[in-house]
């Protein structure tokens, strides 16, 4: 019989027991749906992490004062004042560095437009816009001249604008009091939304770091240096070089611990991605187990089917079926069952993914590779677990089979 003929016979046999066939496929359906959804969630998570990393800044490296002891816990005493704007200037000279900005951080009350608002003040350099890949919604960023003259100019995040000037989305030229010092608004930042840690990134006021140090905090050190490497590949080298540069500048001789720590967002991203991958692997394991269980279910039903259809097998043999034809018939039947389950599973998985995307607002996509792999794998499961029942059918003795009650 031709393959088409065999598939036809198989489909008809399965159709005769439609509800049983569907129940048999259930294991495979669940397994494949799990695979499809898992892969979609996993790749979605990776995309999300990458998006948020890109959102934080381009090829960003952060230097914080104080040493890292273990698990990212910073050692405190006296070390918090170890970084200066001069360190930043020195780092800016390194090859592979695109831009550096010092960051001076202060929480303060801001008064303007008849309202007041408690927010994060960051004293930064004009390079900040580049380092954080942050564009302006209105106005301009401050300049080197503003830095040199300790200008009292500021740029507001959209959350601050909404709270101080609810009626004016771009309050350029308005005056605000930051810790009792009057500053003029020269720009509004575009909205960045929440960070991956759930922080509102738009709840911020930027001023020149020189103004921050001299007019607000009186400190001579900075709270962080943000560095942008020229490319993702340059990150590691820049990190090594700035570490030795800072050790040299701070006169740190090994085994003395560093009085600063360097973080590279790609590492953090990789850790997050790795965690997502482990989750994905676990889920994939569950899916694989469910596929195997589904395969055993198919084997079980095929054995029942062979027994039920013993007389049919005997008859087919009597009218001229070679044992190979019987083997193929039952093998194809098992493969049709499992492949059918696989295809239904892909559809179910795709529906679950779409619904989850809508509910979680998480960018998930069903990958073609996952679809092809799971359909192929389920076909394989059918052939593997269908082989034994099919072999059993093909080895029946026609006389015994015809006599079977």
């Amino acid at each position, binding site marked *: 019989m031709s393959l088409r003929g065999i598939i036809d016979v198989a489909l008809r046999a399965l159709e*005769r027991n439609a509800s049983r066939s569907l129940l048999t496929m259930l294991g495979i359906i669940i397994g494949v749906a799990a695979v499809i959804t898992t892969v979609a969630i996993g790749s979605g998570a990776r995309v999300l992490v990458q998006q948020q990393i890109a959102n934080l800044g381009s090829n960003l490296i952060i230097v914080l004062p104080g040493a890292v002891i273990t698990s990212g816990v910073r050692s405190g005493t006296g070390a918090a004042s170890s970084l200066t704007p001069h360190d930043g200037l020195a780092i800016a000279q390194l090859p592979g560095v695109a831009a550096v900005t010092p960051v001076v951080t202060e929480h303060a009350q801001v008064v303007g437009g008849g309202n007041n608002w408690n927010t994060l003040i960051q004293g930064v350099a004009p390079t900040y816009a580049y380092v954080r890949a942050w564009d302006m919604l209105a106005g301009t960023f401050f300049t080197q001249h503003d830095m040199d003259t300790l200008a009292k100019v500021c740029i507001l995040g959209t959350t601050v604008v909404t709270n101080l000037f609810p009626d004016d989305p771009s309050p350029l030229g308005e005056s605000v009091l930051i810790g009792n010092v009057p500053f003029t608004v020269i720009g509004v930042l575009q909205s960045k939304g929440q960070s991956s840690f759930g922080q509102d990134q738009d709840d911020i006021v930027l001023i020149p770091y020189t103004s921050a140090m001299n007019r607000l905090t009186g400190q001579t050190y900075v709270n962080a240096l943000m560095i942008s490497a020229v490319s993702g590949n340059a990150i590691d080298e820049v990190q090594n070089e700035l570490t030795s540069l800072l050790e040299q500048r701070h006169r740190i001789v090994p085994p003395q611990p560093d009085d600063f720590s360097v973080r590279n967002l790609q590492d953090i991203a990789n850790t997050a991605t790795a965690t997502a991958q482990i989750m994905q692997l676990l889920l994939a394991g569950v899916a694989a187990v469910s596929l195997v269980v589904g395969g055993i279910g198919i084997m079980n039903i095929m054995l029942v089917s062979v027994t039920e259809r013993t007389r*049919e097998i005997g*008859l087919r043999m*009597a*009218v*001229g*079926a*070679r044992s190979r034809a019987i083997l193929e018939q039952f093998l194809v039947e098992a493969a049709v069952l499992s492949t059918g389950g696989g295809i239904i599973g892909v559809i179910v998985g795709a529906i679950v993914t779409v619904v989850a995307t809508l509910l979680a607002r998480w960018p998930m996509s069903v990958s073609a590779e996952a679809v092809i792999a799971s359909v192929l794998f389920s076909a394989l499961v059918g052939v593997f677990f269908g082989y034994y029942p099919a072999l059993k059918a093909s080895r029946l003795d026609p*006389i015994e089979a*015809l006599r079977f009650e």
Partner: protein
Amino acid sequence: MSAVVEVHDLAKIYGSGPSRTIALDGVSASFESGDFVAVVGASGSGKSTFLHVIGLLDRPTSGKYLLEQHDVQTMTSDELADLRSKKLGFVFQSYNLLPRTDALENVELPLAYSGVPQRQREKAARSALSMVGVEALARHLPNQLSGGQQQRIAIARALVNNPSLILADEPTGALDTKSSHEIMELLSELNREHKITILLVTHERDIAAYARRILTFRDGRIESDVSNTPETGAVTVDA
């Protein structure tokens, strides 16, 4: 006339030791083309075993068997399967139609295994159905049909590949008297009109009476081999 079947000194022994059963004990016979042979005998006398060996469903323990001059002794089971699909037709006591499969497709089944293309299969199946007088039932399912109708379809299935020999094991065993005689009328008509060679196993004398030749088995041997004048249509029903 050439011999369709020639067997010489066939023996079939089941089991060994104390459970050893001699089902066939030196059977020699020859059937010509156009023969209508009934095999009768007591239960356990070896009739079915003989039919299975002739039908290539079972191999004899010893002896010689030529089917249309082919020595089947040395053939592989695939070759035997191919011979069954091309040269033999079977009719069983319990019809053995595939359930939930209509009459036409049931009749087509042997052709599927001998590689006949779909279009010719349907044509051959329809003409086989009309030979047994149930062309109108082509699209009926077995469970919508009476026993007699089902057996007619089974006979059409046996005819569809133009076999050299039709083997029927107790074909009337599951039928009432009236249907039994109708089926036997049909078989003798096929033998008379279409020169189809038939080997029939039965334990009922009045069924055997339709044949032209009656072989009587006893303890795995042929006890008698006699010609018979079929009394078609005039058989008295004594059941």
